[in-house]
């Protein structure tokens, strides 16, 4: 798994629960030294081990933890770059949803060896969409739920999200747009310099 993904899990723990909580997770997952480099690659088995350890330490289900990570990625100042890069996807929430189809390709353009889980958007009538997530990490759909909830707010859109899990482990986020001009949302300044 790419270090960026493992490193974002680590940042989530540190920024949300402190260094000690992360060190406990790292110890339980057997990560030595207890730190991930964003620009290196790690064994695929490490990521689920870290997720399990986070669930244990936080006493929550790993699905809940994944959703929190999704929320963290697009709200915390330390990961502002993620939100900004996602906002390049479109001018409104629907544009943004369609841009998710390109997300793995966009990610690969930025970091050539970064392989994001495949996601596929299907649109249905009356503002209904489903986002199908095929991921080697269980709970990726939950992570996307966290991301989508925040991004809907960001675009000032009111949407209801729901997660369906098939028997084969495929996770599908069901999205129902209620109102696209619900609030003003957050400003996205194209020309702002990322800090």
């Amino acid at each position: 798994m790419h270090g960026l993904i493992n490193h974002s899990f680590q940042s989530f723990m540190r920024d949300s629960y402190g260094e000690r909580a992360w060190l406990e997770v790292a110890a339980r997952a057997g990560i030595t030294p207890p730190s991930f480099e964003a620009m290196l690659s790690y064994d695929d088995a490490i990521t689920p081990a870290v997720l399990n350890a986070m669930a244990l330490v936080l006493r929550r289900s790993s699905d809940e933890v994944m959703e929190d990570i999704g929320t963290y990625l697009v709200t915390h100042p330390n990961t502002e770059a993620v939100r900004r890069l996602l906002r390049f996807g479109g001018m409104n929430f629907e544009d943004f949803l369609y841009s998710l189809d390109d997300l793995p390709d966009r990610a690969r353009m930025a970091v050539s060896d970064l392989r994001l889980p495949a996601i596929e958007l299907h649109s249905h009538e009356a503002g209904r969409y489903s986002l199908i997530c095929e991921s080697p990490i269980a709970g990726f759909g939950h992570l996307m739920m966290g991301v989508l909830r925040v991004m809907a707010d960001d675009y000032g859109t009111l949407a209801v999200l729901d997660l369906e899990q098939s028997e084969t482990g495929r996770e599908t986020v069901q999205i129902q747009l209620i109102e696209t001009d619900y609030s003003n949302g957050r400003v996205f300044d194209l020309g702002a310099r990322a800090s």
Partner: protein
Amino acid sequence: MTYAFSPTVLDVLCPMHLTLDAGGVITHVGPTTQKLRPDLTLVGREFLETFQVMRPRGITTLDQLWETRHIKLHLEMKGNPPARLKGILVTDSTGAAIVNLSFGISILDGVRDYALTNADFAATDLAIEMLYLVEAKSAAMEASRKLNLRLQGAKIAAEEQAFTDTLTGLKNRRELDQVLERLLAANVRFAVMHIDLDYFKAVNDSLGHAAGDHVLRVVAKAMIEETRATDTVARVGGDEFTVILPEVGEIDVLERIGRRIIDRIKVPIPFNGHQCEISASIGTVWIQNSKSATRETVMEDADIALYASKNEGRARQTFYSPELRKTANNAAPIKGRGGIKSQA
């Protein structure tokens, strides 16, 4: 074949354009062009008064401007802030013209200076993708740069912690200290030889550092060969070496090893047509009961013995005894001859 499109079509296809009549007067501006000068009424102004053509050079008249059809133009929009733009001009049968504009490579400054959004670019324009890439690549580069800095720091730390002298492959002072501490703690018999090369500075000064390095490597090899496998040979300074010899039962062993080292190092070392002649002075401490000794006292005793060897004419080994301390205090500085002979 003619197409009849309203100006709004151009506004969608190329929002940063303007149209001119045959007299070079602006008749319409696209919505993004207007954003460059929000407070200015551009329609009705002359193109050449609003823009300066930077390339091709010397375009000042309408006829010259018309001649630039289908050529890439470098333009500067007058006023504040000056906007550097790329452009292309086409004319129709009536003599009217369309000029389409773009920021080119200054797109980053453009979106910032004029607070442009996705809506200000045509849907087919790659400007947004370009901005995305610049931002994504900058973030990735920054992450890589930080990784490189950390790796660099780790490399320096690893080098500092290493136990080997990189030039000679001998042990370094860190390793030497550890071996010494171990032997002192174990309270066993052992010996320490402090070896200093004579005339080494003369080699370095006259033949250069490459010669000096070569000599050090030859000397290091000799010391390894003339000591036992259980001994630790370390380079502890420029031309200073220390050998730790564990389990020395008789002083004869030390005398023999010291003699062999001195004899080997006396052999001239050829380098680029020169013979580097050096020798070795040795100060040796034989510790038979290390109860009161510390690393510092052992090294100091070896130093005093070495000083005595130097003082008595070099190329010899002196064993430490407490009496040496007195003579060491009032000995004269050592003078000597240089160590280079040309093979001419």
